[in-house]
C-alpha cells in the first residue's frame, strides 16, 4: 500500500498540492502534509469530534474520511476563522466565557458551532444543544461552551441585522 496519488486540498482558500496514499485520512493530510495542525486528533473513530472541519458547508469528522475524498472540495479549519488579528465572534466568546481549558477539543467545537450558526442563525436552543452534544470535552463540563456559543450566536445575529440595516 505505498502507491501515492497527487491531489490538491483547498484549505481556507489556499491550495495545497500533496502526494498521499489512498488510505491517508483527511485529518492526517491536513496536519502532516498541509501543516495545518490546529485540527486535532482525539480518537480516530469518529466519536470525540476534535477533528471536526467544515467541508463544502458541512461539519464533518476529518478522521473518518480519506484525503482523496476531499479533493475538489472547500475545507475550512480553525486557522481560517480569524480575519487577521480580528477573532471570529465564536473565538472571542470562548475566551470571554472561559469555554476552554486545555484547548484540545476547542478547534473541533468551534468548527461545529460555526457551521451550525452559519447554516441556521436562528437555530433553536434545543437543536443547538443537540449539535454541541456530538463532540466531547473533558475539562469544562460543557457549561461555559454552551454559554459561549449562545453569546456568539446572539452577537452574530446582531451583526447580520446591523449589516442589513446599515445605510449604503
Amino acid at each position: 500500500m505505498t502507491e501515492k496519488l497527487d491531489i490538491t486540498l483547498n484549505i481556507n482558500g489556499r491550495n495545497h498540492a500533496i502526494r498521499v496514499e489512498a488510505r491517508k485520512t483527511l485529518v492526517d493530510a491536513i496536519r502532516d502534509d498541509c501543516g495545518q495542525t490546529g485540527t486535532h486528533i482525539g480518537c480516530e473513530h469518529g466519536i470525540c469530534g476534535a477533528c471536526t472541519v467544515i467541508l463544502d458547508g458541512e461539519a464533518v469528522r476529518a478522521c473518518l474520511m480519506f484525503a482523496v475524498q476531499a479533493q475538489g472540495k472547500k475545507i475550512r479549519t480553525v486557522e481560517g476563522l480569524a480575519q487577521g488579528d480580528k477573532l471570529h465572534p465564536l473565538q472571542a466568546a470562548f475566551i470571554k466565557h472561559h469555554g476552554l481549558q486545555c484547548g484540545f477539543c476547542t478547534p473541533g467545537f468551534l468548527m461545529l458551532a460555526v457551521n451550525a450558526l452559519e447554516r441556521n442563525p436562528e437555530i433553536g436552543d434545543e437543536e443547538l444543544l443537540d449539535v454541541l452534544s456530538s463532540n466531547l470535552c473533558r475539562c469544562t463540563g460543557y457549561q461555559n461552551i454552551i454559554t459561549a456559543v449562545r453569546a456568539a450566536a446572539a452577537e452574530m445575529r446582531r451583526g447580520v441585522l446591523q449589516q442589513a440595516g446599515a445605510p449604503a
Partner: protein
Amino acid sequence: MTHDHPPPPPAADRKVLGHPVPRIEDRPLVTGHGLYAGDVSFPHQLHMRIVRATNAHARLVAIDTAAARAHPGVVAVWTADDIADVPPIDFRDPSAAVLKPYRQPVLARGRVRYVGDPVAAVFAEDPYVAEDAADLVEAKVEPLPVVMDAHELGEFETGHGTEPTVVRHSFGDIDAAFAKAHAIVDLELTCGRHSGVPMETRGAIGRYDAARDVLELHGAAKVPHRNKETLVRMLGRRPHGLHLFEGATGGGFGIRGELYPEDVLVLLAAMRLRRPVKWIEDRREHLIAANHSRQQHHRVRAAVDAQGHLLGITDEFFHDQGAYVRTHGARVVGRTMSMLTGPYKVGAYRAVGHFRLTNKTPAATYRAPGRYEGTFVRERLMDAIAQRLGIDGIELRRRNLIPGAAMPYTVAFDEPGAEELILDSGDFSALLDKALVHFKWRDVLADVTRRRAAGEAVGTGMAMFVEESGRGPADGAKISVDTDGVVEVVTGGASVGQGFATAMAQICAEALGVDYQSIRVVHGRTDRIAYGIGAHAARATVMTGGAVNATALALRAKALQYASELLQTPADALDILDGVVRRRGGEGGPSITLGEIAARVKPGAELLHGREPGLSAEAWFHTDHTVFPYGAQFAVVRVDRDTGHVTVERLMIAYEVGRAVNPMMLDGQLVGGAIQGVGGALLEEFTYDHDGEPLSATFADYLTPTLRDAPPVDVLIAEDFPSPRNPLGLKGGGEGGINAVGAVIASAIDDAIDMPGAVTRLPVTPQRLREILRREAAHP
C-alpha cells in the same frame, strides 16, 4: 519552618489577583496555534509504533521480528533484548524495597502481564508504515492463569506473589470503641475502574543533539522536572545532558505526564538511531496502556453511640493496581486511608489496604486520588448510620464534624512513617451552613418532596469532604524584565490546561505592578530552571504561586531602589503602576518605566556601582506542610424506573479555598471536575472479560459524559479561611470538584428510589440500577 502568615487582602483591595480576568493562554488555543505533542515535528524524524501484548498473562517464548525488519521503510525493531541494559520504569520518590520487583520493564521481559503491555517497538520512516510493520511482529506465547479480581492471589513471578504490600493506618483504641458501641454499621462498597482520559492522547518526541550531547524529550507534561530526575537515573545521563519540554497539554487529570515506557523508548531510539523519534498514542492504546485508577473494594464498619458520634471506624480494602507498580508506588492506597475520615472527628481508626496486582492495565493517580474513592466510602457510611439511627443525614454529619475551634487539627497515625495530616484552618460546619442557605436547600427539598408525591422518582444527596493541596518542600522562580519592559516569569511548574500561566501572571502582576497580560510565563522546561514541582496534587498555584510572589516582591524592591536613585526620590515614596515607576499617589512628577530601568542596568552601566547587572530576581517558597481545602456537595437526580437511567438534574459545590487567584478559572476547575465525577459515578468503567481482554477500548464502550449528561453545576467559592501556611492564603482548587460526586449521586439515587443503602457500587449503570430495582420488586 512553619509560621503563620497573616490573612492577605481580599480581591476588592487588589488590582488583578483574585479577579476573574480572561486567560493569557487562550488566544493561541482558539486560533489553532497551540503546540501539542502531535504538533511537534523535527526534520528526518522516525515514527515509533508499539507492538502490544494480546494476552493478559503469558510467558513470552519468542518474538519474531524478521518480517517487520524486512518491511520497506522500517529502520529498526526492538524487543527487550535490544535494551537489556535499561532498568524498569523507576518510582518518582523513594519507595519501599518490596515494591521494586513489580516495576514495569520498558519492553516486556519473559512475561506479558496485561493486554497492552509493550512487547516490541517498531521505528519507521512513516507512521502508517510503522503500524503496518508492527502487525508483522509475531509474539509466540504460552498463556498463564490470569488474576482478574483483586480478591484473588496469584503469582507475579517465581517467588513474588500479587500482593506486594499491605498498608496500615490506625489510631486510638479500636477494640474499646467497638466494645462500647450503641450500634455497628457495616458496608461493602466498590468503586469502579476508570480514569482521567484526557482528550489529547499521550505523545513523546525524542531528539538527540550530538553536537551538544543533549537528549531532549518533547511532549512532556505534569512533572517534567521530576521525570527528568528519574530519566537521568535510568539512562545514566548527566543532568545537563537531558532536558524535557512541555508545550500545550491537552488535559492531564493526573494520568498524563507520568513516566511511561514510550517516553523512555523515544529517548533511547533518538540516541541510538541518531534521528528524532516521534510517538503519538492512538485512542485504543490510551484506553489500555495509560494509567487506570480508582478500582477498590471496601469492607467498612463504624461503631457509633446513640447520638451517632463516630466512636471508631475500621476499613479493610482491596486496591486493584493492575499489572505493574508504576511511578507512584503504593501512594493511592496510603492516601485513600489517610484521608478516609475526612472532615469528621473519629475516636479510633484502623485501616488495612491490600495493594493487589491483577492482569489489567496498571493504575495510578487520577484527580483526587484516593479521595473520590474514600469520600464515596465514608459518606455512604454516614448515610447508613443516619438511616440506622433515624437521624437526619445533615444533622448526623454536623454532630461529627471537626469543630472550627479545634483548628489546626492533627490526624496522626500510630504506624511509623505514616504521614500525619495537619488540617491548617477552617470551619466545616460554617461552610455547611453557608451552603445550605446559598443553595436554598430547604426549597430544593420541598420541591423534591412535591415531585415525589406526584410520583416522580427524584432524590437528593449530600456529602462533606476534605481535599489536600500544595505539598512542599520548596519551589523557585526567576523573573526578569527586558528593555522593552516585558516581564518573563520562569517557573518549574507545569500546565495541563488549567490556566497555570494566567494564575502566575496575576500573582506576578499584583506584586510587581505590571499588566498581567504582558507577562510571559515559562513552564515545563528543565533547561530554563533546575528545579520544579510541576502540576499535580493541586500544587501549582500554591507552591509555584508562592515562589512567583516572593520573586516578584524581590524584583519590585530592586526596581524601586534603582528608580529611587534615578528619580532622586526615596524608594518608599514610589509605586509601580502598569510597569511605570512614579511617585506614590500622584499623576505628575518624574517617572520611569521598568524597561527603561532595565536599559540603565546593563553590564558596565554607571548606575550599578558594583551591583550585578540586569533587572531580574530569583527567590524560593518553602513549606513543610500541605494545606487542606474542603467542601460540601449536593445533588438532585431523577431515576427512570423502566430503563434504569439516572438523570443528574443539578449539582452544587461549596468549596473553601482560602483565596481564589482567579474565580473564573476556579469555577471552571470545580465544574469540570464535577462533570468528570459524573462519568465515574454513572458511565465510565474499564471492563474485562474472564480472560483479561479489555472490553472498553473505544469511546463507544468507554463512555465519558457528553453535554447531554452534564447537569448545571452551582458553585459557591468560599474565601473565609485563608491558609496561614502561605503568604497568599491559597488552598488548591484542582481536585475539589470531583471529590464527592460519586458519594452524592449514590446518595441521591438511594433517595430517588426510596431504598436506603441500595447503591454500593460505582458506576451506577442502567443495568446495575435495573438489577437493584428488580431485587426490590422480588423482595419488597
